[in-house]
């Protein structure tokens, strides 16, 4: 147990150093490429020079201050107060991010769960029927969805939803936002939420279920031809029993690893889907940051998603260790 704790602590320390270096690197790159000054200079009428300097100084974004000085102040605020700085307009990045995480989680949680269930069960189903028509059909569908760009998929789904809406004359599907009902009736509110979240969930589910499906199929096929499954069959188990009791368990290990990473992804949202469906989550915030020269906002989102990735990596290690009896902590 002590060795296990030591292992985890070592891992976490390594990850913290990684995040620190990666975030600092992103900060310097963002400062080099983004110019918050242009936000003020392009305004009409152009504000007086002193007020531009003042506003930039207040947000710690003035490019006339040496970069190391700005960096020290910025990293100091994060380490001491957990404050990720200000946007060019002077708003708090912490506040903007925390108000958007909720929307991302609402969107991603459902889609992640459904895609894991659908993807893994399709993978198991098709692997048992390799080269039969079911396998060919679903694998064909999967590889089609895998190569279609996300944008195209989402736009086509929106397009057909609008066609359905006009054809039926009622708004069955909503294609923007997460809710439009402001009353107090819980059930109408729930229905309204479901109408909004249905289409983005379909898009996200298709995108990630395809990966789980093809992955699980490959892993299970690999295990099905392993020696221990043949031994189990030789001892008299039916093919189904051998798969369920032996092959399936081993094949779930790599899937569990990718599930671990997607758990972390719930908090960072989905850039394309949020943009297309006008959901105000972290993914959309990220794009807005880049477009509005919001250096601190962009770096904060980058740091946050980096942290989530590493939490995912740690979870993946733990999942693998829990499932795979061969893995020893070293």
């Amino acid at each position, binding site marked *: 147990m002590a060795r296990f704790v030591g292992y985890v602590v070592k891992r976490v320390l390594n990850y913290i150093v990684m995040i620190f270096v990666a975030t600092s690197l992103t900060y310097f790159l963002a400062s080099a490429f983004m110019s918050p000054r242009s936000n003020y200079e392009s305004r009409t009428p152009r504000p007086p020079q002193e007020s531009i300097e003042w506003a930039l100084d207040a947000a710690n974004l003035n490019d006339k201050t040496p970069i190391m000085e700005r960096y020290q102040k910025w990293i100091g605020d994060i380490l001491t107060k957990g404050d990720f700085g200000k946007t060019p307009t002077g708003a708090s990045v912490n506040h903007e991010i925390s108000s958007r995480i909720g929307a991302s989680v609402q969107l991603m949680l459902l889609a992640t769960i459904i895609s894991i269930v659908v993807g893994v069960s399709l993978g198991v189903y098709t692997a048992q029927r390799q*080269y039969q028509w079911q396998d060919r059909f679903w694998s064909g569908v999967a*590889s089609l969805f895998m190569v279609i760009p996300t944008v*195209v998929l989402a*736009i086509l789904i929106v*397009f057909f939803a609008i066609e359905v809406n*006009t054809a039926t004359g009622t708004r069955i599907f909503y294609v923007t936002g997460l809710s439009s009902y402001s009353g107090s009736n819980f059930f109408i509110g729930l229905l309204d939420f479901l109408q909004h979240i249905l289409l983005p969930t379909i898009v996200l589910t298709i995108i990630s279920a395809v990966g789980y499906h093809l992955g699980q199929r490959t892993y299970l096929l690999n295990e099905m031809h392993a020696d221990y499954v043949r031994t189990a069959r030789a001892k008299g188990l039916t093919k189904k029993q051998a798969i369920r009791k032996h092959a399936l368990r081993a094949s779930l290990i790599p899937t569990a690893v990718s599930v671990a990473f997607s758990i972390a992804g719930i908090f960072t949202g989905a*850039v*394309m889907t949020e943009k297309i469906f006008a959901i105000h989550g972290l993914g959309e915030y990220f794009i807005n940051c880049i477009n509005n020269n919001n250096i601190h906002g962009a770096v904060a*989102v*980058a740091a946050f998603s980096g942290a989530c990735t590493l939490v995912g990596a740690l979870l993946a290690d733990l999942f693998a260790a829990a499932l795979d009896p061969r893995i020893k902590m070293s």
Partner: protein
Amino acid sequence: MSEEKRQVASPENTDAKTDETHLTNAELELLADELGSSGGEVKRIGYFSLIGRRFVRQRSAMVGLVILIILIILAIFGPYMTPFTYTDPDFTALNVPPNATHWFGTDGGGFDLFASVVHGLGRSLAIGIIYSVLTTIIAAIVGTSIAYVRGVPEKIGMWFLDMLLIIPSFLLVAMVVRASSGTEGWWMLIVGLTAFGWIGYARTLRTMALSLRERDYVRAAKYMGVSPIKTIIRHLIPNLGSILILDTVLGVIGGINSETAYSFLGLGIKAPDTSLGYLLSQGSSAMLSAPWVILIPSIVLIVLCVSMQLIGDGLRDAIDPYSRAAGTVEDDAEEDAATTETAKA
């Protein structure tokens, strides 16, 4: 060619659906030798012509290749097929559906969609192919080098790759590309995508090179005093060759997808230049009044990506000697027969 031997090959041709009748590539090769009319002599062919032969055997791969060639021809010669260009709007025809003058219709600004689509198709293809080739080269060199050096440098290298992986490359690419102008944008997009696209791939290739570095020929090269760079270029990278080629083909899809995403978000290719992703973003605002502006670029993108996928799948089956999806040898046999007949005549 005797009638008896023909029957050996026919069952798997007529009944290709069941597992048992599928032969692996290696078995197919034996069958092809047997069927060959060179009188029991085993025909020797090089590795790449072998891969080429297995590739040509597969119908779906050939379909993909034909579609891709048609799309490339369209991208190259398309601009000369119409009097309109993607930069000059036709103010007499705003938002018209596809017709004889404007084959794919026009958008709200009067831009001819056919001219825009063929130009965008060229952009997508160029970006996808250049991106894929460059990332493969960088990833191959970095990945194998990290595997070759071993010890502390290897650990440091892997740490840096992991560190670079946790920065969302989306942000970095978008920052680099956004700073560029409209006409130069597509070069900057390639530079940005390549600069941050090779990292995960290099990690995979390093894992694959781990077993290569233990081979005797690598050790022999080392003790013969061959320099590390030469060993990497001459021994490690060529031995990953087939994987590299396959990943280059599939990487094109990734490049095209990224281009579409960035341009759609307004962070990639911008006016006055145009691309399929940019057309989609234009069309999405007028989805109801002018559906053809989004539908046509969408269809072109899907066809392009699916053709690349078919080629990639075909290539994968051709490279894998145990693959059972590689079609039949009948065509080869007929080909052989034809060549020997002409030789006799």
